[in-house]
C-alpha cells in the first residue's frame, strides 16, 4: 500500500464496536495506525499493547461525556492523526470531533448493529464527520450516510 505513513487514529468502544474495527484491521494495518478504546485490556488480547484509553460515556452521562471529550482531544493532540475513523460509539464520536479540530479527515462507520436507523452518534456524524457510512444498503443515500459494504 503506497500511503503507509498516513497517520490514522481508529477509535471504538469495547464490545461490538471494537470487534468491527478489528475486522477492518487488514486494511488499517497498512497505515501508521493508532487505536483508542474504552477497553485497552481487550485491545491487548488482539495484540495491541499501546491502545489509548478512552473513558466510557453516553448521552445520559454528561459529566463522563465531558471528560471523554477532553481525553479524546488529548489523544488527538498527542498523535496528530491525518485521518480519524470510528465504528462507534460516543467515545469514538468525540475522537471524530477532536480530529476535526486538528484538521484530520474523519470517517464514521455506523455499527452493523444499526439496521433500522443510524445510531444517535451516527446522526450527529452526518453533520460533523467528513464521511458517514452505514453498513446497511437500504439505509444508504447519495451523501450521508453512504453505503460501501459491511464488515460481515
Amino acid at each position, binding site marked *: 500500500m503506497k500511503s503507509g505513513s498516513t497517520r490514522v487514529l481508529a477509535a471504538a468502544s469495547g464490545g*461490538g464496536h471494537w*470487534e468491527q474495527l478489528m475486522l477492518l484491521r487488514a486494511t488499517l494495518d497498512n497505515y501508521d495506525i493508532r487505536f483508542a478504546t474504552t477497553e485497552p485490556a481487550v485491545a491487548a488480547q488482539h495484540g495491541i499493547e499501546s491502545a489509548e484509553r478512552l473513558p466510557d460515556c453516553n448521552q445520559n452521562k454528561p459529566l463522563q461525556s465531558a471528560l471523554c471529550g477532553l481525553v479524546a482531544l488529548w489523544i488527538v493532540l498527542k498523535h496528530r492523526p491525518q485521518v480519524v475513523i470510528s465504528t462507534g460509539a460516543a467515545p469514538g464520536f468525540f475522537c471524530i470531533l477532536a480530529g476535526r479540530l486538528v484538521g484530520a479527515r474523519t470517517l464514521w462507520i455506523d455499527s452493523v448493529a444499526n439496521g433500522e436507523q443510524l445510531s444517535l452518534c451516527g446522526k450527529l456524524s452526518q453533520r460533523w464527520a467528513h464521511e458517514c457510512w452505514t453498513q446497511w444498503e437500504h439505509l444508504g443515500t447519495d451523501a450521508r450516510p453512504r453505503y460501501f459494504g459491511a464488515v460481515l
Partner: protein
Amino acid sequence: MILVTVGMQLGFDRLIAAMDALAPTLGLPVIAQTGKGRYSPQHMDARARIAPAEFERLVQQSRLIVSHAGIGTVLTAARFAKPIILVPRRAALGEHRNDHQLATVNQLSGRPGILVAMDEAALPARIAEGLAVKDWSAVQSSTARQLHRALAAFIENRPL
C-alpha cells in the same frame, strides 16, 4: 464443543430450553451462557454470565456457536471464523423490545459462516449444516471486500 449464548442482558429461555433438549443428541459437549433466563438446563454446562476473555477463549475452542441474533456474537464468531447459527428473539414472545433481530437475520442470512434458524424447530437441521461447514476463514464476503476497498480509498484521499 458447541457454545450457546443469549448474551448477558436478557434471558432467551426458548433457545436455551431447545438446546438443552437437543444437547444429549449432539455427541459434543455444550456450554451455554444463559443470561437472565429462568430455565435451568440439565444437559448443558450452563452459566448465567461468562466473562469476555473467557467467552473469547470458548469461542476459539468451539466448533459451532448457537446464538441469539446479537451482533456482538456474530462479530466474535467472524473474527475466529467459527460457523454461527442465529435464532432471532421475537418481540411478540417478550424476548426483546422489538423485532430488530428478525431484520438482522434477514440481512445476514447467507453470508459466509452464518446460518439462520427462524425458530427452535429449525435448529436440528441448522446444527447439522453448521457442523458440516468447512473452513471458511479465507472467504471474505463481497460486502466486506467492498468496505475494505472504500476504507483504503478514504484513508488515501482517493475518490470513493
